[in-house]
């Protein structure tokens, strides 16, 4: 989230699209309800009328997978009617930047496309540079190749009739949505955009989000209180786990994980440190060397020195894609022999679970760490298999729950909040911290006697106060870990005229060094634990004092990255002179007398106008036109991999830049067509269950509330299929079938596209063969295909059919 939960109260219009906040983030409704009390309009755009729609002022349906057309039409509506905050767009976005002559777009393809590799040569989309290497700009926004005009031309094609034909949204309701939302172009009005997995789990998920960002920038809604582009994250610490880089492509703090091309630290830095010739660009990522060297110092301590490239060679170098789907394809192919799982249950939660479970069976060994006996740990117990046929050796380690250990988690709003141990772990369960500490020490012991390239292990800095032997009574010192994440001086060092002692905590990431004199496990968290004592742990703060702008930032409640900035891009909340666009709910403002910013922690200390506001971009501007994406610099509508309709925008049926697993690895990757599977299917969650279900289907009170899988379908479809409310139905795709109870409801209406009726059904995916309540996993239905940029699987739109199954009504 650029903003935070209670900030939603400041919005004039709240757009909830790709999110069912009332069910998946119910406490959001506290703040949305308060905004409504103050007159805010709430819009819910969703294929199905949900609990979120129930409290929205406007509900607009649209077919799953047509988000880009839907929002593209809103962008066009804003541009055609001049509902654009011009000063903001001109000064703070790349609207005025001239794009290369090589850029072009025709019939769904951008220039630079290579059909053999299904990829683009992005140099076609670069900025035009002047002799000094500065982007050429046209401040009149009239140049035909400026980003603004290209954007306008691109989205002109998304007129209301075309959009409603693609999406199936009712024209009158859609126009209401456009009117309401674009009203926030006025500087004293603001709109917030809330989304979640409904937006990301598509083959064009990244571009879905891009449409939100483009519209928010045109309306001048980014950086303001009550504005922003807000991803509502679904797990309590999925923000923190991402920050800490439990992903193949990054290291902690969003540093790129090295590739095989990075044969030295210098080569790595050359390919990753952005450069700018614009003196007004802060280019924050120019600090790359400080962050990576500090990370290497945290990991290899005295073994990381300038002489050995700070142990850069110890870090694995990737060659290609190791993301989730690739991982399970490699496991299915027999390449992966051992698996460690900490609190994750792919046998329910992965896409195409029939294939992913088959892949799990091919492992030699699996170590599953969990509170519960999950489906993944008990694949050998699942219905229809003989345990003797499954050769995987399985260790199931009992872990402590969140109330039995101490540490921090980071919420969707980037707040790192500290938790305490209320009681001891149950039975012989141990914290994940203890388990990781014990495993690392045991592996170090193995490698002390030699092995293949043992140095990255034997030299790993690892001392969390438990000694060298594994001891069940000794809990690692979590504060020591938190202090390492923050970072400390590894030697005496003078920075900015102040002398820091060896061992002293680094007060903030601006002080991190690239010479090895500081360590920091994650530069983004530098400032979270800025002193030696427990009282210096800012993540544990509980003061309700508000900042002087009185907009509920609560700067002394817990701690927020980066450097406690509560609203990102807040330099865009003021005009170029430092005056808030909206003085009634200002975020920061320039105090000319004191020569300092007031309010939130600003995006850098520089006076107004001295630096461009979007400091994480090398050019300092927000990108309406984004030349770095794999599937094009502007969002374009393509149909999902499986769709009942041809793409009405171009002859490119699906995103041209996605990897087609059904062609590259056809086994168990069948793709269905509309003749056999004419119905659009989607998956989602309910308020009462959580993710793959282990944390809720094992709880009697929650099992009671939602005891069975159900399939929601419209009245017309049910009539056609002879299905009554409460009947058992079977859902089938090209990959698998599963059963559940039919919930026949007016909340799921068919869609009309150019006169053709398309039905959609939806099913909850929380269920599996373990727990108090059991049921089929909906992910046997979903395909192995991912977004072109993030590789997030397309769970949200596929083709299926539905039949009445055996068994009666309840």
């Amino acid at each position: 989230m650029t903003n935070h939960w209670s900030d939603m109260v400041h919005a004039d219009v709240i757009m909830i699209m790709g999110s069912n906040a009332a069910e998946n983030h119910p406490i959001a409704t506290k703040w949305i309800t308060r905004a409504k009390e103050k007159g805010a309009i709430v819009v819910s755009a969703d294929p199905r009328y949900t609990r979120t729609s129930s409290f929205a002022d406007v509900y607009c349906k649209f077919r799953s997978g047509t988000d880009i057309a839907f929002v593209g039409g809103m962008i066009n509506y804003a541009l055609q009617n001049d509902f654009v905050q011009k000063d903001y767009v001109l000064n703070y976005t790349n609207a005025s930047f001239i794009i290369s002559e090589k850029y072009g777009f025709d019939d769904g393809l951008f220039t630079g496309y290579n059909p053999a590799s299904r990829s683009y040569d992005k140099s076609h989309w670069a900025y035009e540079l002047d002799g000094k290497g500065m982007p050429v700009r046209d401040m009149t926004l009239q140049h035909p190749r400026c980003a603004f005009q290209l954007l306008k031309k691109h989205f002109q094609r998304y007129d209301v009739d075309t959009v409603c034909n693609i999406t199936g949204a009712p024209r009158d309701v859609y126009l209401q949505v456009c009117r309401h939302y674009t009203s926030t172009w006025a500087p004293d009005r603001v709109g917030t955009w809330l989304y979640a997995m409904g937006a990301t789990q598509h083959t064009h998920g990244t571009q879905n989000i891009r449409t939100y960002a483009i519209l928010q920038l045109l309306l001048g809604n980014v950086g303001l209180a009550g504005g922003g582009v807000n991803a509502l994250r679904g797990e309590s610490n999925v923000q923190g786990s991402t920050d800490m880089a439990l992903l193949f492509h990054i290291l902690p703090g969003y540093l790129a994980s090295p590739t095989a091309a990075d044969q030295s630290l210098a080569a790595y830095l050359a390919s990753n440190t952005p450069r700018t010739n614009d003196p007004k660009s802060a280019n924050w990522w120019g600090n790359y060397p400080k962050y990576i060297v500090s990370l290497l110092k945290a990991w290899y301590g005295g073994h990381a020195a300038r002489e050995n490239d700070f142990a850069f060679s110890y870090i694995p170098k990737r060659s290609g894609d190791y993301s989730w789907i690739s991982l399970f394809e490699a496991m299915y192919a027999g390449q992966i022999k051992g698996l460690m799982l900490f609190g994750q249950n792919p046998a329910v939660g992965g896409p195409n679970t029939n294939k992913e479970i088959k892949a799990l069976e091919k492992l030699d060994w699996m170590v599953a760490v969990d509170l519960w006996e999950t489906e993944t740990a008990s694949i050998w117990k699942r219905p229809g298999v003989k345990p003797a046929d499954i050769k995987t050796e399985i260790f199931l380690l009992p872990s402590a729950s969140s109330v039995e250990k101490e540490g921090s988690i980071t919420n969707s709003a980037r707040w790192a909040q500290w938790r305490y141990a209320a009681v001891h772990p149950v039975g012989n369960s141990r914290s994940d911290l203890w388990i990781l500490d014990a495993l690392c020490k045991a592996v170090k012991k193995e490698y002390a006697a030699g092995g293949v390239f043992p140095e990255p292990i034997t030299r790993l800095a690892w001392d969390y106060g438990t000694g060298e032997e594994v001891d069940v009574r000794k809990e690692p010192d979590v504060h020591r870990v938190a202090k390492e994440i923050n970072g400390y001086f590894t030697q005496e060092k003078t920075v900015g005229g102040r002398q820091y002692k060896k061992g002293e905590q680094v007060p903030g990431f601006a002080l991190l060094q690239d010479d090895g004199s500081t360590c920091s496990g994650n530069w983004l968290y530098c400032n979270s634990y800025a002193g030696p004592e427990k009282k210096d742990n800012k993540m544990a703060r509980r003061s309700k004092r508000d900042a002087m702008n009185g907009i509920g930032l609560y700067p002394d409640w817990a701690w927020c990255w980066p450097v406690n900035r509560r609203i990102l891009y807040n330099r865009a909340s003021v005009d170029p002179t430092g005056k808030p666009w909206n003085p009634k709910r200002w975020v920061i403002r320039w105090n000319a007398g004191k020569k300092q910013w007031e309010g939130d922690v600003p995006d850098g200390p520089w006076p107004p106008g001295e630096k461009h506001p979007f400091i994480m971009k090398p050019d300092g501007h927000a990108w309406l036109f984004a030349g770095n994406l794999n599937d094009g610099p502007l969002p374009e509508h393509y149909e999902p991999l499986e769709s009942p309709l041809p793409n009405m925008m171009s002859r490119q049926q699906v995103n041209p830049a996605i990897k087609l697993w059904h062609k590259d690895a056809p086994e168990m990757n069948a793709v269905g067509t509309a003749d056999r599977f004419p119905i659009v299917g989607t998956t989602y969650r309910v308020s009462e269950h959580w993710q793959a279900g282990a944390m809720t289907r094992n709880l009697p009170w929650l099992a009671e509330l939602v005891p069975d899988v159900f399939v929601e379908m419209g009245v017309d479809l049910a009539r056609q299929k002879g299905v009554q409310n409460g009947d058992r139905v079977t859902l089938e795709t090209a990959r698998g079938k599963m059963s559940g109870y039919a919930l026949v409801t007016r909340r799921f209406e068919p869609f009309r596209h150019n006169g053709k009726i398309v039905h959609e059904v939806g099913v909850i995916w929380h269920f599996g063969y373990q727990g108090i309540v059991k049921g089929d996993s909906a992910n046997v239905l979903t395909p192995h295909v991912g977004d072109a940029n993030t590789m997030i699987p397309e769970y949200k739109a596929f083709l299926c059919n539905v039949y009445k199954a055996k068994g009666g009504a309840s």
Partner: protein
Amino acid sequence: MKALLIDVTRCVGCRGCQVACKEWNELPAEKTRFFASPKGYQNPRDLSSKTWRVVTYNEAQTNGRFEWVFGHLQCFHCIEPSCATACPVSALQKTKEGPVVYDPDRCLGCRYCQLACPFLVPRFEWDKAIPKITKCTMCADRVAAGEEPACAKVCPTDAIVFGEREDLIAEAENRIHRNPRGYVHHIYGKDEVGGTCVLHLSNVPFEVLGYRTDLPKISLREYTKTAMQVVPHVKIGLAVALGAVSWVIQRRIRNGRDEKNGSSSGGES
């Protein structure tokens, strides 16, 4: 006198309240199955000795607009509770703070209260050897300690709020006044059966939520008392006693309905 105001227009159906009730009152889960009627989400099906509060899911078409509205089943905590009057051993009592509470140690399990209650709230522990009557106590222990009932405290949108009854009535009137098109112009529980300590506001007719709309505006207590007086003592055949109470109450309600010129039936399902 304390009361709860339940504004279903603010409810998002998350059911934090249903779990909060079980957590605070240490009520076990029921074994449930997908409940098709009316629309799938509701579970358990009804109040029981293990479930003192249930959120209902109702699809409705009102004023040309489709609505999904979430109703709330729980004890209404009548100002003059007929259950307490019906109880031969005073196990059920109205506290001056508002909650209608009961003492399980006193309960004989006669179930008079069940028949006396116009809202069908008290439930019997059918699965126990010495069954008792149970129901929502408005978290009387919390109220006595100056806390809110668990359901009110947990509610994210303040769809359930706790306070002085007269303040809540004023607040409810104010909400209707401020947003006359957003509400049915009626505070359910303000006058029903002489007034209750659980008040409801709705944007759809109360029958749609399954609430009884055939109740008289005066207390049923007098009639209950009369019924109890004609029953010599509990030792007389239980069926006779229950029958007598039930007859009086139902006649009273019928009369009330007649007074309203035969308006729609409604009733809890």
